[in-house]
């Protein structure tokens, strides 16, 4: 077997050196009756070339040749080949969590840079070394708010990604944390009338997403003001982080839970991505996840270490702020490299392109009779449209044109079955947008 660096005779010599008569002797602590006598029923062994054939065949069974207008938490963006080349360097790819700081300064320095970039883009004071993804980052942010306020009730906007809310509910159920969902108005923003003084006086946090699941930007300053006036916190989540290239960062939020996939990480059917929690300096000791910090060695050389570990499970066990151990370090590195490449000018230009293309697509789609913008709020690169028919049916027809259409809201919002969220990023060409608009027009012109 090509991965195993031993010859049969070396194995025999090593067994002899140990003083074992056979390899089975080394497994004698496993009760005889539980030891397998037959080989496992597994496909393989396959050579490298057969493995590639298997996966190429699977790749061929997916969406090749389709143009997609799906966003809803996962975004298609341009990324340089450079980040993939660097994260495949063995020194990054095949190294462990940097607990032995002297031998892991590469990873630690990069994490420190990641934390810095996340603070800069999110307008926060501290950011951690990553969470699993946006959905678990949001859940951990809510648990953090619960610890900070000592309140066990949260107000979550329904316009937060439905799958994020589902994850939060799974965690909340057994922790005695009560989650109340808050509706939305005609602007697509959280309904502030539902945020009564009574609710706020008991709530650990108001939880919103911006841009939200409908693509609409939430107005954070008044929400923060309302929360803070009653001892509550504002937790803001972001699924489309490229928006922050042009959209004002959530500086009023007390905790930001972000999905960093938009920073040059491929969709990869759902992961791995990179979650982030960013917050105020004064809250850092209640933050979950690893943190890299700057320090010095005895000779005064600058170096980086994992720090404030007394928050973490390997030190505090059942008293830790979270059970998270493994995080998404390699994709935090990928995001770091991507952001260094695209840089200060590029992130703004990219965001502006998204804004322009989405605006172009929206304007063209709204010209189709019966199609209208559902919400009046400001949007970035996603917008919700109401169609004269169910989005599911329209999407079914669009597939025949090799187009993956808008995200159908009916599944999670029964009152919005005729509504879909269209996402247009810089990867969509004008020609593709025009083909999409023409296809929708054709479908809707056909009699039902």
């Amino acid at each position, binding site marked *: 077997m090509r991965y195993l660096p031993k010859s049969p005779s070396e194995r025999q010599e090593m067994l002899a*050196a140990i003083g074992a008569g056979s390899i089975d002797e080394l497994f004698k602590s496993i009760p005889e009756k539980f030891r397998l006598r037959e080989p496992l029923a597994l496909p393989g062994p396959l050579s490298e070339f057969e493995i590639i054939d298997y996966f190429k065949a699977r790749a061929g069974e997916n969406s090749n040749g389709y143009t997609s207008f799906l966003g809803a938490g996962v975004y298609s963006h341009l990324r340089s080949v450079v980040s993939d080349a660097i994260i495949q360097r063995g020194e990054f790819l095949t190294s462990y969590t940097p607990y032995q700081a002297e031998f892991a300064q590469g990873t630690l320095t990069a994490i420190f840079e990641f934390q810095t970039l996340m603070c800069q883009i999110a307008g926060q004071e501290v950011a951690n070394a990553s969470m699993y993804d946006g959905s678990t980052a949001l859940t951990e942010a809510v648990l953090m708010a619960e610890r900070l306020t000592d309140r066990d009730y949260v107000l979550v906007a329904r316009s937060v990604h439905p799958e994020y809310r589902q994850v939060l509910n799974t965690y909340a159920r057994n922790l005695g944390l009560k989650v109340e969902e808050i509706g939305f108005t005609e602007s697509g923003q959280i309904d502030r009338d539902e945020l009564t003084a009574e609710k706020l006086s008991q709530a650990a946090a108001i939880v919103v997403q911006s841009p939200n699941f409908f693509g609409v930007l939430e107005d954070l300053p008044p929400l923060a003001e309302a929360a803070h006036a009653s001892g509550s916190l504002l937790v803001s989540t972001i699924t489309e982080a490229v928006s922050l290239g042009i959209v004002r960062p959530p500086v009023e939020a007390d905790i930001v839970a972000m999905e960093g996939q938009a920073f040059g990480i491929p969709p990869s059917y759902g992961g791995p991505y990179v979650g982030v929690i960013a917050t105020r300096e004064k809250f850092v000791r209640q933050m979950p996840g690893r943190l890299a910090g700057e320090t010095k060695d005895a000779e005064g050389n600058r170096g980086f270490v994992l720090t404030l570990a007394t928050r973490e499970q390997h030190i505090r066990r059942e008293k830790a702020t979270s059970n998270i151990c493994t995080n998404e370090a390699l994709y935090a590195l990928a995001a770091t490299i991507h952001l260094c490449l695209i840089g200060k000018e590029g992130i703004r230009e990219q965001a502006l392109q998204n804004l322009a293309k989405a605006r172009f697509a929206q304007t063209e789609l709204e010209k189709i009779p019966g199609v209208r913008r559902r919400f009046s709020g400001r949007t970035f690169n996603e917008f919700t449209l109401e169609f004269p028919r169910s989005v599911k049916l329209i999407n079914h027809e669009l597939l025949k044109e090799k187009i993956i259409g808008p995200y159908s809201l009916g599944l999670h919002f029964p009152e919005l079955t005729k509504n879909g969220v269209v996402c247009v990023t810089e990867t969509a060409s004008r020609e593709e947008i025009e083909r999409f608009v023409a296809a929708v027009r054709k479908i809707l012109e056909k009699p039902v």
Partner: protein
Amino acid sequence: MNPKSAEPEAAAHHVGKVRSHPSQNEGLIFEHSIPGKRGMELPPLDVPPVDPIAVLGAEFTRASVEGFPEVSEIEVIRHFTRLSTWNYAIDLGMYPLGSCTMKYNPRVNEFVARLEGLATEHPSQPGELSQGCLRILYDLQKCLLSITGMDAVTLQPAAGAQGELTGLLMIRAYLESQGNARRKVLIPDSAHGTNPASVVIAGYEVQNIKSNARGQLDTDHLREFVTDDVAALMITNPSTIGIFEERIAEIAAILHERGALLYMDGANMNALAGVTRPGDFGVDVMHLNLHKTFSTPHGGGGPGAGPVMVKKILEPFLPSPIVIQKADGTYALDHHRPQSIGRVRAFAGNFGVLLRALAYTLAYGPGIRQATEDAVLNANYIRKNLEKYFDLPYDLPSLHEVVFSDARQKAKGVNTMDIAKRLIDYGFHPYTTAFPLIVPGAMMIEPTESESREECDLFIDAMRSIAAEVDSNPEIVKTAPHSTRVGRLDETAAARKPVLRWKPA
């Protein structure tokens, strides 16, 4: 200095204060930044440009991302390549971190994970356009069930710790369906820290139980603790000292008699794959760390994946959705799971990690047993060659890892951390220090199957040489490492006044 000298005494004499490194002065990327540079250009905009203030309103617009770097492509390449040279990696040599299973990460796995048609797929795209992705997940499910001997599986958890939580939530849901969720989960004192942390998030209380003098769970002791209030025992098998729980079936029976369940932390599955199956020895729920046993890269701390395998009785409670094969042979995500614990992560889990684990499994097929055998062979070979030099607190047969203690070296004022840091000067990553907690001054060594006899011999030579240094020149060990870009870093200062981000001077 020859870092991997086969002559340990010679190496000891040649190691001095070494500070040379070709890129030791590399600063932070922010310190390279000069306005007006960039490392990536976008194609020109092909639709009419917009004025952001007109579209978004001034109140929603920012001028720029203050502090963001402005550097060219070559500067980015150089910066990160220089940083990379400050890391150790499996690709450079043995990484004997006990309980971490730092094995070779096959390059073909990286290649297939990046294929057009896999890396490019959106998790919310229609099922009929995702058949390839779903089949990969389904095939992996079948492989994991075959290897563990369990009945059903979820691939959703993003890492081992999330797998633990998922398993515990399923136990809770099952017991609730029986009428009583119960209150406590038992955890041996040798367990990973994630176990008790996960128990708390699942809404249970932790009851710690002591291992016996042999490092095993005492069944009589266990019987006293298993009351009607106990939901489950979380056990790591083989334990964190690399020893199989010989009475595992009895342990399972004790729990089952009182209606409690047995959870197995599969972090050490690299000792068992192809040799024995947890499903056969009484385990009800377990997770696997695909970034350990199944070779997906650790990447400096993640990503991982923590699939959870369960027995039939727990199947209705699996997180939603699950991957199924329909009667017509096609694959789908099944969301209709009325008794499900819910979602633990958005979308379909860490698909890219799951895919790599399948590539690994396909490479071995039933031959995965040979990997397990080689891992156990290497651990025992190292044990045999080092047991004269280091204290072995538990003298039971080792499987995939061996745990020594620094008891002998302590007399000279040298502890496990000093020896670990000194290993760096010999060109090896340190072993795991100070864990498990039941071994004071633990030195936990897991070579994995990926090490040749030659590499094992070099490691043994290094460890023997350090043992000799402890007698002849303890200072050189206590002040190690001497060959890295920075010396031992002041962790106390880092925690006292945390500097967690770069700021302009």
